[in-house]
């Protein structure tokens, strides 16, 4: 005879193990079910509780027992449905009766390996400590020493160059009839774009929902068309819809090619119909959030939209392997890819690789420095974000961007090429909300431009994620904000026009902040790339490592 099954409490987790604990207030709740209807992970559910009281009101012990059955909202202790703290319940609650509370004692990582699979998630590195970028201060304030500049009055040229800048003696110029003219015969003049020094980094259609991606694209286009700010955005690996490829707005976009080559046959098909060249081509070799790890778009996200744009069948997992399959050495990888991509647009478009922050960055850089077609090097530091990765890749792999970009810049300085090959830095820019100052710090350490991702998702679409592992549901397709999902019921929560508006807000205000940062340092109204004597840090070893001043 089989013994009757019984509830097994032995392997049941207590709420204390969970990273977020739902605080629910019975006295405020009207049991409308809003919270349980929206919870993306079904971490809460309606339940029934017995409330029993024994009281006595008489002068002698006279017990009166009352029993009440109440309906409650309860957090489940199933690790597969753990509360991620997104707070959507709180957002929809009309009575402020519910909210998740972070539990610093949680043991999520002890249990999230259930089923033998390592913990995968989206988001960013779970490290809420202050990054190097946020520790950098601008300490060289000019008042009387250099011409003091006024951020409001003086006109700053907050612009940078994306593309290979030839040194003066290599410029293909000659004097003809007393005038300076460009030589015509057989001289390769590298394409260079003048862009805004903060760009929106590569986030693919697929990783992002249609309204999110289109909202960003519209915001960027608005900045160019209405505000006259040449902000550009990278497509991410996943192609672009033909409507955009064939539009004159293509010049505001950087097309990314990565190891999956998704969307590229569609791009090539659209080539003859293009009325503008793209801003640039980014070749992705690595990503700061998950160095050495590839991309994976889960099959449930590969619906008709993604399938058509990427040129793949529906309902299949789309893997972008960690490495490109046809490249076996740095020489070959760089030369081959840069050549191919340059050739596609007749060498009119800057082509540059993007790597994850790494001790090997200078090796890549030196290779690029020798390649006349390399337009820049983009380095993505460990504080970057991603739609899906193993937790271990996100939390433990990668290199901080500050010293990485600094090493590269100083390397260029040693070669006298610091003005030739632009460095694009990313990974944690605006991690704590300090978008402009982080960008300014990186620029002064030597970056020509910075790239942002998480910040714009938080600022433009209210992404709920943070470094306390809040939400970080990007990989599940259940993004409560509608940012990283292909489910129309979720992404239709997001208004692309609002996203665009916030993108405009972000860049306009960052522009003011950059001026407010650069102006007091005086000297110039040009972008202070590598002007590291304006920076200090209150840590001696960091100062030494970054070759900047120590101030305390």
């Amino acid at each position, binding site marked *: 005879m089989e013994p*009757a099954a019984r509830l097994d409490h032995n392997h049941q987790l207590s709420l204390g193990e969970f990273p977020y604990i739902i605080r629910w207030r019975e006295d405020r709740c009207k049991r409308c*079910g809003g919270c349980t209807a*929206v919870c993306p992970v079904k971490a809460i*559910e309606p339940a029934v509780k017995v409330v029993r009281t024994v009281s006595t009101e008489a002068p002698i012990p006279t017990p009166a027992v009352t029993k009440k059955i109440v*309906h409650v909202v309860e957090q489940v202790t199933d690790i597969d449905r753990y509360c991620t703290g997104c707070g959507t319940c709180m957002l929809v609650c009309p009575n402020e009766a519910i909210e998740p509370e972070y539990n610093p004692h949680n043991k999520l990582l002890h249990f999230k390996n259930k089923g033998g699979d390592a913990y995968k998630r989206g988001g960013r590195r779970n490290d809420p400590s202050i990054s190097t970028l946020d520790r950098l201060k601008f300490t060289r304030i000019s008042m009387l020493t250099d011409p003091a500049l006024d951020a409001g009055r003086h006109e700053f040229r907050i612009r940078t160059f994306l593309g290979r800048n030839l040194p003066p003696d290599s410029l293909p110029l000659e004097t003809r009839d007393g005038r300076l003219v460009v030589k015509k015969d057989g001289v390769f003049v590298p394409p260079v774009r003048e862009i805004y020094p903060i760009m929106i980094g590569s986030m693919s259609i697929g990783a992002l929902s249609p309204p999110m991606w289109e909202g960003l694209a519209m915001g960027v286009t*608005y900045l160019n068309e209405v505000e006259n700010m040449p902000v550009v955005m990278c497509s991410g690996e996943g192609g672009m*819809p033909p409507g955009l490829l064939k539009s004159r707005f293509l010049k505001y976009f950087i097309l990314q090619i990565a190891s999956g080559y998704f969307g590229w046959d569609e791009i090539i098909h659209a080539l003859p119909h293009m009325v503008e060249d793209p801003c640039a081509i980014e070749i992705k070799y690595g990503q700061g959030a998950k160095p050495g790890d590839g991309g994976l778009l889960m099959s449930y996200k590969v619906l008709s939209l993604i399938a058509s744009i990427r040129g793949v069948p529906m309902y299949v997992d789309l893997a972008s392997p960690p490495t490109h399959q046809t490249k076996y050495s740095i020489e070959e990888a760089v030369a081959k890819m840069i050549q191919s991509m340059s050739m596609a647009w007749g060498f009119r478009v800057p082509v540059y690789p993007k790597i994850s922050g790494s001790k090997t960055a200078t090796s890549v850089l030196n290779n690029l420095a020798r390649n006349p077609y390399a337009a820049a090097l983009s380095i993505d530091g460990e504080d970057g974000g991603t739609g899906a990765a193993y937790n271990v890749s996100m939390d433990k792999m990668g290199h901080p961007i500050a010293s990485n970009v600094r090493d590269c810049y100083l390397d260029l300085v040693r070669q006298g090429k610091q003005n030739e090959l632009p460095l694009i830095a990313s990974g944690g820019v605006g991690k704590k909300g300090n978008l402009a100052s982080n960008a300014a710090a990186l620029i002064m350490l030597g970056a020509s431009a910075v790239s942002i991702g998480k910040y714009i998702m938080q600022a433009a679409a209210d992404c709920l994620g943070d470094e306390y592992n809040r939400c970080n549901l990007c990989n599940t397709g259940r993004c409560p904000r509608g940012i990283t999902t292909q489910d129309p019921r979720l992404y*239709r*929560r997001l208004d692309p026009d609002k996203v665009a*508006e916030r993108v405009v807000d972000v860049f306009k205000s960052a522009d003011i902040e950059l001026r407010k940062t650069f102006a007091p340092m005086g000297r110039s109204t040009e972008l202070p790339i590598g002007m590291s004597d304006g920076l200090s840090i209150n840590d001696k070893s960091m100062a030494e490592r970054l070759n900047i001043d120590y101030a305390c």
Partner: protein
Amino acid sequence: MPAKDDKKLKVPDKKTKSKDNTLTIHVNINSSRVSSRILEERIQQAVENGARNLHVIADGQHGIGGRIWPRNEAVRISVEGPVGQRLGSMAMFGTEIVVDGSVSDDVGWINCGARITVLGDVTNGAHNAAAEGFLYVQGGGGARCDTMTKQNPRFDPPQSWYFRDVGDSFAEFKAGGIAVVCGVNPRNPENILGYRPCVGMVGGAIYFRGKIKGYSEINVKQLDLTPQDWEWLTVNMKPFLEAVGRNSFYDELTRSADEWKKLIAYTPAEKKTWKKLKMLTSDFSREIWEAEVGKGGIFAQYINHDRTILPYITIGVERRNKPVWNNEKYLPPCVYNCPTHIPTHKRASLIRQGKMKEALSLVLRYSPLPATVCGQICPNLCMHGCTRGLLDRPLNIKELGGMALKLPAPKPAQKTGRKVAVIGGGPAGLSVAWQLGLKGHGVDLYEAENRLGGKIELCIPRERLPHKILVKEISRFKEVGITAHLGKRINQKAFEKIYKGHDIVIVACGAHQPRRLTFPGSGDTIAAIDFLKGINSGKDFNLKGRNVVVIGAGNAGMDVASEAMNCGAASVTAVDIQKPAAFGIEMEMAKGKGVDISWPRFTEKYDKKAKKIYFKDGASLAADLVVMSVGEVPVLDFLPLSVHTEKGWIEVSEFGQTLDVKVFAIGDATSAGLVTHAIGQGRVAADVIHAQLMQYDYMPEVKQVVPYEKIRMEYYDLCSFEGFEPKKEAELCMSCATCRDCHMCEAACYHGAIKRVGHKDGSYEYIVDDDKCIGCGFCAGVCPCGVWEMVENI
């Protein structure tokens, strides 16, 4: 106040008085230039001494003519020669300064009321921070003129008049005062206000005449002059032109207000009304974006839903989850665990509705022997599974079964004309015959013994099953019109005949051939089945005071041991090679009688003469009688080749069908089991046989058991009564997976989306209004019975 070294200043100097009472001050004495400090002291001294007309012949001194404190008289200062910076700075009302020629930077700096006339050009920063007074400029101004000017409400606003034009960055941060730029003979006819005027300007006004190239649009706006402006301008133009000696231009400058424009600052209130964006992004999206990339945006061709924005709380097709009233989708644990699937929850429900008779007779639809089996010999797997057991105790289903004893047999259905044969009148055979008989089929039941009941009759100790209960139920069994052929043992030939004469043959012959272990002396043991059969048929084994050993401590071994004790045995020991398989009442009863259970024991030999049984570990036991209770196997020698057997048992499908489609087999003939298993198999097979006979397609529905977590036990109080009373017992039932019609879901639904709908046949259902339901799951969360379930809304 005079300076401390006043006396030193009184040395004879070049201070001379002219005929018109003007004091002339030279700043060069003997080719030596007087410093700005000395000149200042002299001027202050002269004014102190009563001079009211001064003529200064300057040589680049700083701040000439300022700081003459008001004396209710005009102090006129004319200046010639090169002047230094900040002429007339911090000058007060009553001071009138006329410079014959151009001046250097910052003329009239923080002017506090003086009238300063420059018969030439002013350079950079003229009237910077002026707060009151006049600056009349015969020529033009340099960069950053009229910056930071303000108006003190106590005084008239400062006025700055430029006859020609001004340089770049004009009127930055201007907070008050009026600037007039006449635009006569400008240096740059295309732009008389220079590059980017009015940055940060917050107050005052600029009247200008001529072309300009832009201004700080976030600070000021350009307007036409109002009649009031025009009147002010034409009135005040006169003294200006008079002062700079350009009266002849009056007509030209005042010929038309249309030639003039003014720049005034936006008020904070106006700025507040400004849209933050130059263009709404929604307009941009429609007019610019979609115009270029296509209507509906870049993804329009791939999506087939509205582009409207959805709220977080959605209804209808936009919900993520939806509730389903899954009444009876799952089996309650009692039903699931009962091999016969007797629906105890329905019995409880009928009792709660006051339908006691229906409730009790329901069981006869499932079993011919409820009082015998449920009520007596069954281990009641239903009760082991009962959800209620998690709270306090299971429902007393045993007693409920016992209550069916006196019920009459249900009325069989109309005769179908089909004929079936059942071989074996044990529990399996009785069950299948009963079911098929009730369905109206003609049933021939063949039993080898002279009594029906099989092992229940033959082997089960009477103390566990009072014989009269069995007899009573067997008599009820006979009421359904089954033809029982008693004492009819079937051989191959007989089978063939039966096979030919019936539509279906069901083999339910049980297992009556004892299995035997062989060891020296094993021939001197007797089989458990023979022992038990002997006891039940009244045979005396003469065990009084004897020692009995039972090999095999399963439930049959326990029955043997108990009966041996009943026969007065001095000791009974049940041995086994492993942990005894016995459980429940059989084991309790045996132990209660003093039966010793010993394991592991591997029998070596039995010496009948020595009355001793030896074990391989060297131990031995006294044994007058050794009963071997290691199971029985069926005797299947009568079966045709078409019925496949496997290791001595008949091979059957899940529903009892053998490889011969006409032959079914159930009960111990297929594998050893409990009586309740035999009865359950009989019922399941009967349904399948019925379908086969009536030629319709049927597969028994296999339902899952409801998970305990779905049942909300919180609603129930702990059971507080003792004894058995059907009505109270029925109240204990939690109606697992079956709606108890309590309306809890309807009441809990905040959105009023759930409604109970009654049907004409008395049935009912709860339905969901999809246009109200938000998919919150409250119905599923609070349903006492676990009937509501949430599913993905796809």
